[in-house]
């Protein structure tokens, strides 16, 4: 709770609440399109065209017969640009076991080739079944998963579940697994960085 207070306090201090999609943290309306504001902040309680699920529902889906595709779009830990060369830097990304990690696939704007790759990867992961359950998440109070889920709804996926509590909600009662970035997503990032 302190963390929520902290974010709210920082927003208030920086007068950024006016830029947020709503005045009230508990009733943030859905934006018209994708959300292009600060990636961390209060999110709406809904996502039209997708179901909103909690950790228990995610666990139930995972235990059920129709295994969901789990997509984690959380940003990786960012190494400080001035972090001393000699110090130990060993970031780790605990997440829902079995999830596919495509960092920042919920960014807005997103480069067209990244967006295309995101759709391609989801098509591969769902085996082209647009009704397959797809669970999209990142962290709590993170717009990335909202945007990524919205992208899939727009693309015609009908089984989209948005899991707003993200890994923080999951780890309360469930075991996590440390993920590596999806190889295809990583390869594309490196190609882009190398250009």
């Amino acid at each position, binding site marked *: 709770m302190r963390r929520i207070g902290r974010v709210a306090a920082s927003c208030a201090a920086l007068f950024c609440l006016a830029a947020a999609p709503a005045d009230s943290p508990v009733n943030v309306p859905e934006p018209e399109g994708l959300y292009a504001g600060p990636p961390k902040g209060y999110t709406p309680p809904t996502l039209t065209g997708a179901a909103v699920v909690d950790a228990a529902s995610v666990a139930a889906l995972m235990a059920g017969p129709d295994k969901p595709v789990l997509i984690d779009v959380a940003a990786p830990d960012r190494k400080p640009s001035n972090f001393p060369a000699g110090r130990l830097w*060993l970031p780790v990304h605990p997440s829902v076991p079995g999830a596919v990690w495509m960092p920042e696939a919920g960014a807005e704007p997103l480069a067209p080739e990244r967006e295309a790759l995101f759709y391609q990867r989801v098509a591969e992961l769902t085996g082209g079944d647009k009704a397959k359950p797809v669970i999209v998440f990142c962290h709590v109070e993170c717009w990335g998963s909202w945007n990524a889920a919205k992208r899939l709804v727009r693309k015609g996926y009908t089984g989209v579940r948005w899991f707003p509590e993200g*890994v923080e909600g999951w780890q309360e009662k469930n075991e996590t697994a440390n993920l590596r970035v999806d190889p295809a997503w990583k390869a594309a990032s490196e190609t882009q960085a190398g250009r």
Partner: protein
Amino acid sequence: MTFRIGQTLSSLALGLALATTALTPAVWAAGASDTDQERAARWQEIAKSIFGDRQIAPTDSLVKIDAPVRALDAALVPITLTMPNDGQIKAVSLIIDDNPAPYAAKFEFGPAADPTELKLRVRVNNYTDMHAVVETQDGKLYEAKQFVKASGGCSAPMGMSDEEAMKGMGDMRMKFAETGPGKPVEATLMVRHPNFSGMQMNQVSRDYTPARYIDKLTVSAGDQTVFTLTGDISIASNPVINFAFKPDGKPIQVAASDNQGGRWQHSFNPPAPTN
């Protein structure tokens, strides 16, 4: 793990109905061991990169970590390290395994130190094991472990502008606890410094505040060192360190530096012992 299996077995003894329900967590526990193995493997990797091939033996007497199992604020997690005060502890390292920069702090004790109880506040980024590793005077290493539930502490913004956070940077205060003659004195050092982790984003500009943290802090009692702290981005903003020292009537000197060239020095007079 052993504990959970033990629970299951005792439930079995209680009766079939209970045993059936108890089996569910046992199945779940089989999955959990993956996580435990993952944590153990990570600790091996970290320990090797910090201590090389040196052996680290488990201990429950040479160092103990007290931390809240569930932290109220991941950016401000209070840690207490307890060690024996018989001169055998040379240094203690605090490692927060699942922080991106796991090596949070190293305290090297000098002749004026009383390492009985050392407190500091740290940032915790993920549910994690924490390790305290002590080095004894004979050069041996011993470890203690504690699991902490907190997340997001390294990137949590301070709730104020960078300028405001840096106001009075390097200011220090020290409080002394009452003491009797010849007894170690407990002291609390408070340093004003944002200790920016470099992972905190300004939500408006979306720029990251560059890392600026205390990398070295030495406390001395007269000419004798109490401890030298090597710090990192995992130490919470506005560091507060509780420690104890052997007084010799001389002032306590604190010298601190940060990774951006900041240098500060302060002197404090401990109270005269009361009879």
